[in-house]
């Protein structure tokens, strides 16, 4: 470790910012020894998290989630489709995650970010396998018409823990989602939205009489931790993610069942104790996030 030895000698006369750039790992390890992080958080604490519902007026359901600086905007658009034969009484959900060049210096226009399809796949796995949404609720007329929910999540600022913020935004958007009132028009099959103009003409066949919300059960929440030596850092920033390269993402649902434990490689091996510590940190975090989400929902209802 020649470089670390040299940094030890130099550090006395070096400015903090220069030290941080030249020897990022040493810089972090010095902090970790004191059980604190450069942004003054203890190791196990996540950044301040906010959720705002209804951020996109034209969407059927939308939410903006912020974890520290990481910002995600999620919006759901509903469309009517003919359900496939094998699941004739179910709607479906299509999830896409976008990382435009605005979010990070690594993403270049024209060339999609490498992580975007991976996060997108992880999100649909977590949301669909958790069984949060009862797809039968998205059905309109069995075998004929069902809702297709297009969920798009845009990353506006990528400062670490992308999956956590994206999942939070997605869950919040689903809890804000209102299924509009629809009816079948005179031409027969075509299903049109009747919106608010129900006055005058009688609704022939109100398929969905009034606006309703989905009942969400077993909502998944996640926490990403970084493993470095024996330390576990919850909710890493982008800088921490680039310096220490072993992320572990744990997704638990509201009844504490494991939806996903995702560790894609990394130089640090996760031993049993580390796995259990990550799960324990996630349990705490799920409680925090549940409160943040229910506060956001009740704020919305007051407005």
């Amino acid at each position: 470790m020649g470089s670390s030895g040299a940094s030890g000698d130099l550090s006395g006369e070096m400015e903090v910012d220069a030290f941080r750039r030249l020897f990022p790992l040493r810089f972090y390890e010095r902090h970790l020894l004191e059980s604190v992080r450069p942004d003054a958080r203890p190791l196990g604490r996540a950044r301040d998290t906010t959720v705002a519902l209804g951020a996109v007026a034209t969407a059927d359901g939308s939410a903006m989630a912020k974890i520290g600086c990481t910002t995600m905007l999620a919006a759901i658009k509903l469309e009517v489709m003919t359900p496939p034969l094998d699941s004739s009484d179910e709607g479906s959900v299509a999830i896409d995650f976008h990382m435009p060049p605005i979010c990070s210096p690594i993403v270049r226009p024209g060339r999609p970010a490498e992580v975007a399809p991976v996060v997108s796949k992880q999100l649909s796995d977590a949301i669909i396998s958790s069984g949060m949404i009862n797809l039968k609720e998205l059905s309109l007329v069995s075998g004929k018409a069902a809702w297709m929910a297009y969920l798009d999540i845009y990353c506006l600022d990528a400062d670490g823990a992308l999956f956590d913020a994206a999942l939070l935004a997605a869950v919040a958007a689903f809890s804000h989602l209102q299924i509009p009132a629809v009816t079948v028009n005179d031409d027969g099959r075509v299903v049109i939205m009747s919106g608010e103009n129900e006055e005058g003409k009688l609704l022939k066949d109100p398929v969905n009489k009034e606006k309703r919300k989905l009942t969400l059960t077993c909502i998944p929440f996640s926490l990403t931790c970084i493993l470095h030596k024996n330390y576990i850092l919850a909710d890493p920033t982008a800088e921490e993610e680039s310096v220490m390269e072993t992320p572990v993402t744990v997704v638990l649902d509201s009844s504490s069942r494991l939806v996903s434990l995702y560790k894609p490689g990394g130089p640090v091996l996760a031993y049993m104790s580390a796995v259990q510590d990550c799960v324990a940190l996630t349990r705490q975090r799920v409680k925090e996030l549940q409160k943040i989400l229910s506060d956001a929902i009740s704020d919305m209802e007051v407005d």
Partner: protein
Amino acid sequence: MEVDRVDGRTRNQLRPLACSRNLLNRAHGSARWSQGDTIVLAAVYGPKAGTRKNENPEKASIEVIWKPKTGQIGKPEKEYEMILKRTLQSICLLTVYPNTTTSIIVQVVNDDGSLLPCAINAACAALVDAGIPLKHLSVAICCCLEENGTVVLDPTKLEEQKMQAFAYLVFPNSVLSVLPQGPSSVESEPLEHGIITSVTHGVMSVDDYLHCLERGRSASAKISDFLRRSLQSQLPSDRSKAA
């Protein structure tokens, strides 16, 4: 234990493993790994000079290209590429050839369940065949969880679809070394108990996951032995070729 699986295996029984190396003439290293009807062919080219943009030039970079059996690559394949890349990065000695890129091309020959573990094993054998310096080998296994909480190892595609949840786990193999045990066994747990990669699908309880880990670990010891044996058995021919 009673036989209760479609293909007549017990729960802990793996499908027959086969590994052959040095199949492709132009590749620097290649391997074909099969677990029952799941067959994956991996080729390694490199180290080639230079790294791609956004990669650290002070280290060797690893590039994984996933070729599905048919069709275009989609999101699942992109995810597999990323998992494979990160997993292989963690077993390679990246500081030996800085500013180089090693490409690993994974061709799926047939998918009958446990595809990603099979690909990881194939890629690992191909890296050995190419002589890329590794810290240790990696051994991958798929554990499935039935509705009633029993763990089934190395599922076929049919079983994978029926199961409530499954986990792909990658462990390091046990190191046989003449050197005294170094700092590898920190926390009083041996090296091969650490998880390199864990990917799960479906909902399970935390205890069930820990149970999967335990089963996966003991099964990975068997695959590890097989991998080591099959790598050793081909050594003499390599030596004769070099001479």
